[in-house]
C-alpha cells in the first residue's frame, strides 16, 4: 500500500526520536557508556540502583541537549525539571526512569526537509528532553531464566518529539534523516542505528481528506532503520484504512513492527497502558541554565547542514539537490571543500560529480566511511586537474581513479605508469589518421559520397591505433579536415 496515491485519506504522522547522546559517562553516574562491553561491567552502584545512592546530572549531556535546541531554533528552558516515570520492569533498576515531563529543556523548534519533488517543508518539533535509557533483558542462552544487562541503564538519551506534521511515510523518513544528519553534525550522537543509538517511535493516524480533527492514533514502537520506518508506516496506514473501510474503528494502542513479516501487531491497548505516576524527582534540583551558558554553546556550534547547503549552492553554483547531498554530513562537506580548495571554485560542478559519483560508489562498494577513503581530497583534486588540463579524458579518469583507489599513488604517477597521457600532438594524430585513411579506401569513398555516419568509424579506428590516448577534440578537428580532402 503506497501512502501517496490515496485520494480519499490523509495520513498524519509524528515521530518521537531517541538519540543516544555521545557522552563518555552516563547521565546520572560516572560509569562508561561504550557499546558492546560484557554484561554488567559498565553498571555502577547508581546504575544498579543500590540502596542509598543518588543521581548526579552529567553536564555534558546538558550541553549536548542545548546544542540540539539551538540548532533547531528552539527555546532553551531557563528552568527545566527532571521527573520520575514509575513502572516495574527488571531492566529498570530503580523502578522508575528519570526523564523530563512537564518542563523539558528544549521547547518548540523547527527543521526544514526537502521532499523528492524538490519542495521544502517545515516540520515542527514540540520538545526535546533528556532522559536515561533502561537496561536490556537477555532471553537467549539461559535455561528457564532471563538475564539482565544493565550496561545501557543510565545512558543519556535525547527524546525529540515532532509535531504531527508529516503526511506520508516518505516525509517521515526525510524528517528522520534530517534529524540524523543534524545530531551527527553536532557530534552529539553517533547515529548508529544498528546499535540502537538512533531509533524512533511513530504515531500514525489517518483521516478523510478535508476533515479537521485527527483520527485515532496508533504508536509503533522502536523502529531502528529508515527502511523499517517507511515500511511500518505504510503497512499501518493501509491497515487503518482497511479497518475503517470495513466498518470498524481504529483503536488507540501501541503496536510493534515485525521486520520479517513487514507488519505491525498489537502490543498493548490504551486501557492496559501504565499509569506512570510522573512527579518531580526530589533527588535532582531544577536544572537552571543561564544565558552565558547558552551563548557559549551557541558560539561552539558548527556550520549547520542547511547553512552549508545554501553556501554550496550560492558560492559554487550547485543545484539544491547536489548541495544537499554534499552537506549531508560534516565529513562529506569537508572532503568536498578540500577538493575545491585545490581545483578552484570554477571546477566545483566537476568536483561535485566526482565526489557524488566515483567516490561515493567506491565508498559504498567497499563499505568505508569518507574520512577513511583510499583516495584523499588532494588525490582526487590532482586527478581532476589532469582532466581539466586535457592530460587525460574524463573516461580515462575513471580508470585512473580505480587504480588510485586500488593501489594508492597520485594521478600523475598512475597516468605515467600506465602511459595514459593524452596525445595532443597534431603531427602524431595526423600521421595516425593518414594511415587509417590509407588502409580504408572504400570507407573513404563512401564518406565522401555523403555517408557521413562513417565519421564515427574513423574516430574509432584512429583511437584504436593510438591506444585511446588521442585528445578527442584534436582528433575530431584533424579528421574532419583530412576526410574532406583538405590536405590530400
Amino acid at each position, binding site marked *: 500500500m503506497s501512502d501517496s496515491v490515496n485520494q480519499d485519506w490523509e495520513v498524519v504522522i509524528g515521530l518521537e526520536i531517541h538519540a543516544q547522546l555521545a557522552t563518555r559517562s552516563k547521565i546520572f553516574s560516572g560509569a562508561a557508556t561504550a557499546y558492546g562491553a560484557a554484561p554488567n561491567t559498565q553498571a555502577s552502584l547508581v546504575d544498579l540502583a*543500590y*540502596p542509598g545512592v543518588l543521581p548526579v546530572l552529567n553536564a555534558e549531556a546538558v550541553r549536548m541537549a542545548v546544542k540540539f535546541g539551538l540548532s533547531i531554533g528552539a527555546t532553551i528552558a531557563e528552568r527545566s525539571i527532571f521527573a520520575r516515570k514509575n513502572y516495574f520492569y527488571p531492566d529498570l*533498576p530503580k*523502578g522508575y526512569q528519570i526523564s523530563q515531563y512537564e518542563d523539558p529543556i528544549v521547547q518548540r523548534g523547527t527543521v526544514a526537509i526537502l521532499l523528492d519533488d524538490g519542495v521544502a517543508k517545515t516540520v515542527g518539533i514540540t520538545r526535546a528532553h533528556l532522559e536515561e535509557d533502561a537496561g536490556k533483558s537477555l532471553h537467549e542462552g539461559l535455561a528457564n531464566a532471563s538475564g539482565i544487562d544493565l550496561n545501557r541503564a543510565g545512558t543519556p538519551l535525547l527524546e525529540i518529539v515532532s509535531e504531527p506534521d508529516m503526511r506520508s511515510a516518505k516525509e517521515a523518513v526525510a524528517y528522520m534523516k534530517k534529524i540524523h544528519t543534524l545530531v551527527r553534525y553536532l557530534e552529539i550522537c553517533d547515529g548508529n542505528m544498528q546499535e540502537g543509538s538512533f531509533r524512533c517511535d511513530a504515531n500514525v493516524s489517518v483521516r478523510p481528506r478535508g476533515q479537521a480533527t485527527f483520527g485515532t492514533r496508533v504508536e509503533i514502537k522502536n523502529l531502528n532503520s529508515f527502511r523499517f520506518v517507511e515500511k511500518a508506516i505504510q503497512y499501518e496506514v493501509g491497515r487503518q484504512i482497511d479497518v475503517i473501510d470495513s466498518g470498524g474503528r481504529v483503536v488507540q494502542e501501541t503496536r510493534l513492527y515485525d521486520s520479517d513479516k513487514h507488519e505491525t501487531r498489537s502490543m498493548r491497548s490504551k486501557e492496559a497502558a501504565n*499509569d506512570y505516576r510522573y*512527579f518531580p524527582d526530589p*533527588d535532582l534540583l531544577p536544572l537552571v541554565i543561564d544565558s552565558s551558558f547558552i551563548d557559549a554553546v551557541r558560539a561552539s556550534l558548527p556550520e549547520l547542514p542547511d547553512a552549508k547547503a545554501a553556501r554550496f549552492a550560492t558560492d559554487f553554483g550547485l543545484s539544491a539537490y547536489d548541495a544537499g547531498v554534499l552537506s549531508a554530513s560534516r565529513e562529506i562537506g569537508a572532503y568536498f571543500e578540500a577538493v575545491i580548495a585545490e581545483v578552484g571554485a570554477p571546477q566545483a560542478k566537476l568536483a561535485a560529480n566526482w565526489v557524488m559519483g566515483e567516490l561515493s560508489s567506491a565508498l559504498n562498494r567497499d563499505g568505508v566511511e569518507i574520512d577513511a577513503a583510499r583516495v584523499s581530497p588532494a588525490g582526487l583534486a590532482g586527478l581532476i586537474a589532469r582532466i581539466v588540463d586535457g592530460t587525460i579524458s574524463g573516461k580515462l579518469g575513471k580508470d585512473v581513479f580505480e587504480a588510485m583507489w586500488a593501489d594508492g599513488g597520485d594521478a600523475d604517477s598512475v597516468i605515467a605508469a600506465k602511459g595514459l597521457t593524452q596525445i595532443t600532438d597534431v603531427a602524431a594524430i595526423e600521421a595516425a589518421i593518414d594511415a587509417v585513411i590509407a588502409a580504408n579506401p572504400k570507407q573513404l569513398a563512401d564518406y565522401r559520397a555523403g555517408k557521413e555516419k562513417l565519421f564515427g568509424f574513423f574516430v574509432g579506428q584512429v583511437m584504436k591505433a593510438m591506444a585511446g590516448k588521442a585528445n578527442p577534440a584534436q582528433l575530431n578537428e584533424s579528421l574532419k579536415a583530412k576526410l574532406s580532402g583538405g590536405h590530400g
Partner: protein
Amino acid sequence: MLHTLSIGELAELLTSKRLSSVELTQHFLARIERFNPSLNAVITQDAARSLAAAAAADARIGRGETGPLLGIPLIHKDIFCTDGMRTSCGSRMLDNFVAPYDATVVERLANAGMIMLGKANMDEFAMGSSNETSWYGPVRNPWDTSRVPGGSSGGSAAATAARFAPIATGTDTGGSIRQPAALTGITGIKPTYGRVSRYGMIAFASSLDQAGVFARSAADAAPVLQAMAGFDPKDSTSVDAPVPDYVAALRNPLAGLKIGLLAEFFEGLDPRNAALLEAALDVFRALGAETRAVSLPSLPLSVPTYYVVAPAECSSNLSRFDGVRFGYRCQDPKDLMDLYQRSRGEGFGAEVKRRIMTGTYVLSAGYFDAYYVKAQRVRQLITDEFRAAFGEVDLLLGATTPTPAFALGEKVDDPVTMYLNDVYTIGANLAGLPALSMPCGFIDGLPMGLQLIGPHFSEARVLNAAHQYQLRTDWHERRPRGYDA
C-alpha cells in the same frame, strides 16, 4: 564512669594518653553487651572491626594527631550504608543486605576518627514514630522499658540515653530525631535540608530526609555536626556553602536574641507541658533573650501535607526493592509478577505497605492534582510563613511532642493517632529548617523536650541557644536509672 563524660572530656583523656580509644571502645562495648538485651537498641555489631578502628585512632593519636572526635565511639542508625556490614534499614527486605560502600556521613565521621560500635535499630525504612515497625522488634525506652523510645531513630535515641555511646547518628524526615530525643531525655539536632549529604542514607522521602546527631548535650553535638556537614558532589541536593564553626559559636551571648512562641504550638497544649516551656522561657529571658508571640496559620495543615508528600516519594523510592538485584527474594517465584508481588509482600511490613499504597494513590492519574499538587502548594505556604516569621524573630520555640513516651502497643493499631504525634516536628521538615530538641523537664517521671527551630543554615545559632540554656540547667544531665553499674 567513662560513659557519663562529655566528648570534650573524653577527647582530653585520649589526647593526653590517660585513656586509649581501645579502652574506651571496650568500655562501651561491654555496656552494650550488658544492657542491650533489655532495650534492643543495637541490632548489628562487629566488635573486632570496632576495636581495629580504635587501635587505628590510638595510632593517629600516637603520631601526635588531635581532633575533637578522634577515638570517640558512636553508633550509626542502620539507615546509613556501612561498607562490608549489614545495612538493614530495620526491614526484612534488607536483612541479608551487606552494603558495598560507606555513606558520606559514615565516611566523614570515620575520617574524623570516630569509632563505630554498631548499627542502631529503627522503624522499618524510617517509617514510624515509636520504633515498633522494625523487623528486629521494638526498641524499649530506658526510662521505662514498657514504653516506646519514639521513632524512627528509636535505637539511636535509646542507645544514647542509656549511654551505649556518647553519640549516635539519626535521620529526621518528620521528626525522627527530635521526637525520640525528647522521649528519651537527650539532645538531637536535624540540620537544614541540604546541609548534610544524603548519599548512602537509604531514602524514605528524599525532599524531607536529613541526617543529624543524637548527643547528651548541644556542646557534644556541635563538633559531630561540624564533621558531617558540608557539600558532597555525590548528592545534588547538598548545598555548596561554607560550614560555620559551630563549636566556637556555642559561647556567644544570647542578649537581644528574639525568640518567637508559635501560637499554633501552644494552643491546646497539656498545661504540664506548657509549664515546662514557661520555665525554659524564664531561663532564656534571664540570658537576655526577648520573647514574642508568632503565628503560622497554615502550620496545622502540616500533618496532612506531610502524609501526602512523604508517602508519594516513598512509594517511588522503595520501588528498587523488587527482589531482582539485592535484598529479600521470595522462594521459587513462578514468574516475574509473582517474584515482585511475593518479594515485596513478604519483605515489607504493614506500615511500609500502608505508605506505599497511600503514595501510589496520591500520585495516580486523576488524584495527583487533588493530593500531590495541593500538598506541594500547602508546603510552599508553610515555608513562606516560616520565612515571614524569621523576619521578626531569630528562633522559634515550642514543645517537641504533645506527650511523654507512650506505652508499647498503645498506638500501633491506630496510625492516625500515631501520625499526630509528629504534629510539632513536621513543619521544620516541610520547610527544610534546622531544628533541635533538648530536655526541659519531666512529666510523670518521663523526660520532655523543647524544640528550637531556626531559619535556614542557622545551626550555629540553634546550637548556641541550646548550649547557653544547658549551661544554666541540668535536665540534660539526668540519666535513666539502672544503667550505671
